[in-house]
């Protein structure tokens, strides 16, 4: 069944037990992103500490894919330098836009490699990217401020 390729155990685990969920203070910038076709939304906050991503907190509603990928995002970027976080973002973007043709690098994406199956469903790619786009936007805002 193809479905199992998309809904990997890792994804369902993150969906049922999301990491880092909830909005926290203090934060440097916040981003609100919405998926216009399904109405899914995320509000995501970033706190930077110099060049480090000190915290990412978020709240929102959405499908298993969008919720799980935001949870994975926090695991991947919190505590990392912004430059490294953006490398991961680029790798995740490449994976998701690869139509299932891109081989993910587990060293970079860790649990994120579970989304390889999602990349074969173009309509779901936006779901997987929702939190990541919010992160990108929030960091840009935070750096704009600084």
């Amino acid at each position, binding site marked *: 069944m193809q479905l199992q390729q*998309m809904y990997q155990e890792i994804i369902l685990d993150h969906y049922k037990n999301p990491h880092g969920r909830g909005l926290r203070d203090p934060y440097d910038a916040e981003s609100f992103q919405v998926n216009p076709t399904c109405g899914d939304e995320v509000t995501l906050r970033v706190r930077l500490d110099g060049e480090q991503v000190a915290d990412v907190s978020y709240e929102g509603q959405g499908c298993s894919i969008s919720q799980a990928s935001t949870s994975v995002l926090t695991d991947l970027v919190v505590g990392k330098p912004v430059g490294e976080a953006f490398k991961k973002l680029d790798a995740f973007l490449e994976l998701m836009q690869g139509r299932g043709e891109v081989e993910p690098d587990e060293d970079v994406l860790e649990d994120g490699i579970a989304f390889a199956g999602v990349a074969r469903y173009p309509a779901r790619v936006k779901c997987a990217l929702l939190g990541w786009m919010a992160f990108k936007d929030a960091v840009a805002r935070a750096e704009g401020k600084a």
Partner: protein
Amino acid sequence: MTTTVSAPLDVAALRADFPILGRTVRDGKRLVYLDSGATSQKPTQVLDAERRFLQERNAAVHRGAHQLAEEATDAYERARALVADFVGARADELVFTKNATEGVNLVAYAMGNAATSGPEAARFLLGPGDEIVTTELEHHANLVPWQELAKRTGATLRWFPVTDSGRIDLSDLDTVVNERTKVVAFAHQSNVLGTVTDPAPIVARAKQVGALTLLDACQSVPHMPVDLHALDVDFAIFSSHKMLGPYGIGVLYGRAELLAALPPFLTGGSMIEMVRMEGSTFAPPPQRFEAGTPMTSQAVGLGAAVEYLSELGMDRVAAHEHALTVAALAGLAEIPGIRVLGPPLVDGDVADRGGAVSFVVDGVHPHDAGQVLDDQGIAVRVGHHCAWPLHRRLGVPASVRASVYVYNDLDDIDAFLAGVRETQRFFGVV
């Protein structure tokens, strides 16, 4: 619904006109197409009519004097007459647009243009203090153009709320539609809930206060007999691609007298009377509203689609869909953890409800539910179906919608119901 019809649709036979239904999806699953509310499939007869036109008599219409141009113009205008006949209107009351969305925008922009038009357009004038009325269950196509018109003119947008069971709440009709109201725009049938609204009380009240009415007939004209003159609305819109016809063409109906006074919207070739560098005058309707080269072959295809539907008989189409809708609602009622949006079955039946069944599965996001259904070959729509405010009103971010048409049968409904149970099983919510 109490339609009495001689014989039901012969679905098995007519499915042969839709070769796409024979294909498989997702590793060999039979395709169960339950997304006709978004767009319908098109029978071979429609494709053939369009192709025949293009290979035998294609030329620019209303512009040429040679034989091909004559034949093409005849075919185009014959299509207009066929469609007019199908909805109880006169041919010169029908404007071909690119889709239903353009139709609403046409009326909204043309009303805005009354500000820079002659005195005959004064009845369409709109400004601060004036009100535009719509409803909370509208498709974005019948909401956003009015929001924008309000923004451009300073008029105020008001709307009818929606009841818990998903019907337009008319209890404050006389307050919502009042002396300040310029236009009332509402859906004949909701694309999410299937709820059918009787236009009569709204039209009566609008007439009382001198407001115009616009009926969004996108989900009614394809699915039931509609007689626009009998409904007595001022404007109506619908889309070809939802009624077995080609993409790229929709219809705006306007009462003859109103179209005659309405300022133009899109301008350019074929809609003019006289053009000088200093300014132009415009042709009578419907030409005034058909700027540029029209969707010629698509009109011919739409003509073939209404011939196809007329042959089936719209009463029979409605009865057929009603039977499938009742079966779907009855089946869903038996599955715990399913919340159906819109009017429920009462004693095994429901009135004024067309063939769109939207629902949520407790514990499973609609997008995820749609994915499991898709994996079984069942094509439904997930999301807010371009009716975001309605979903907000009903307290859900999104829903799953199954919508039926002439080519669906009870096997499709059974497959769908089994698919919903599989969704719950897959996500472990039962």
